């Protein structure tokens, strides 16, 4: 936009700035059995207060579109000791 000023003119210009939405983040990884190192499917991966996914048969998971911030992440599966970060 080009603003033109006339001689002696007092021009008022009010501006509204729109915030840029933060780029979404993601969390991904793999869950394995601590004793055998074999991949663990069916593990519930939960970002507390946000949502959860379940690991695939190869133990991998991916959670997309996470707003930036601090989160508690919990991994749990029946028969295993749950861990929390």
């Amino acid at each position: 936009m080009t603003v033109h000023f006339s001689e002696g003119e007092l021009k008022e210009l009010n501006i509204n700035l729109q915030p840029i939405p933060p780029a979404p983040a993601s969390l991904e990884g793999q869950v394995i059995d601590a004793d055998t190192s074999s991949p663990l499917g069916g593990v519930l991966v939960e970002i507390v207060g946000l949502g959860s996914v379940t690991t695939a048969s190869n133990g991998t998971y991916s959670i997309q579109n996470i707003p930036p911030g601090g989160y508690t992440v919990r991994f749990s599966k029946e028969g295993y000791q749950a861990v929390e970060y």
Partner: protein
Amino acid sequence: MIEIKAGEIKELNVSLVRLSSKVELVGAAWDKDFYYVGDTATLTAQFHNPTSQDFTFIAYLRWTNPYTNQVEGVQETLVIGAEQTAPVSFAFTVTEEVGKIMHIDLIEDGEAIRTFRVSDLIVSTPTGKANIIVEGGRNIPHNWPANTPYTMSRKLVNVGDAEGTSSVRGSWYVYPNSNNRRIIDMGEVALTPGERKTVSFTISWEEMLSMQDEGVLWRYYNMGGSLSPVIASITCPAGWYSAVDHDGTDLLYPQ
């Protein structure tokens, strides 16, 4: 807590520990010392769960059928609260097909993921006779200092259903020359059904030294209700130590 920044692709790899790999068998006992065929045998096992989560598994008491070589057993559900110790009892009818050696397996997804050996099942067939057997392990010390007498013991138990006696004998001999046998003592032990007695024989250090035969082993073993202790000869009288070899024979070697 983890911090996730805008636009970040954070990687978080995790390893989970099986609860069952932490659970420990802290005790197991039969409700009787031995059983006759037809009795109900009950094994009560105590498991400890040191984790912070409750533990629920299938526990399986297993044995191998001596006639078919098939693994058989009884199962119970095992539930232990976090950081708790809890019992699980296995009961079954004793038959001739029940194997002697017992294991407790923790089962998950159809597979045994932990196995604990428990004491053997002792079964006696009713005969109307005494049946005196040697029970338990040996008591040979790991170190036998010089100038001290050496005592060997065996626990005898009558697993028959009548009172009876068994002759016992303590002796030493030079292996492999069993003709050079020296008897320490002998006698008879009377036992009622289920009764136990410990029989001991002691040989003095001086007598031991008098039986030295350098380079020749003296062996110690038992057969049935008799005792035939034998030990290794010494070439260094400063001290001895013992071991159990693969066929269950106790040997003493020069230290």
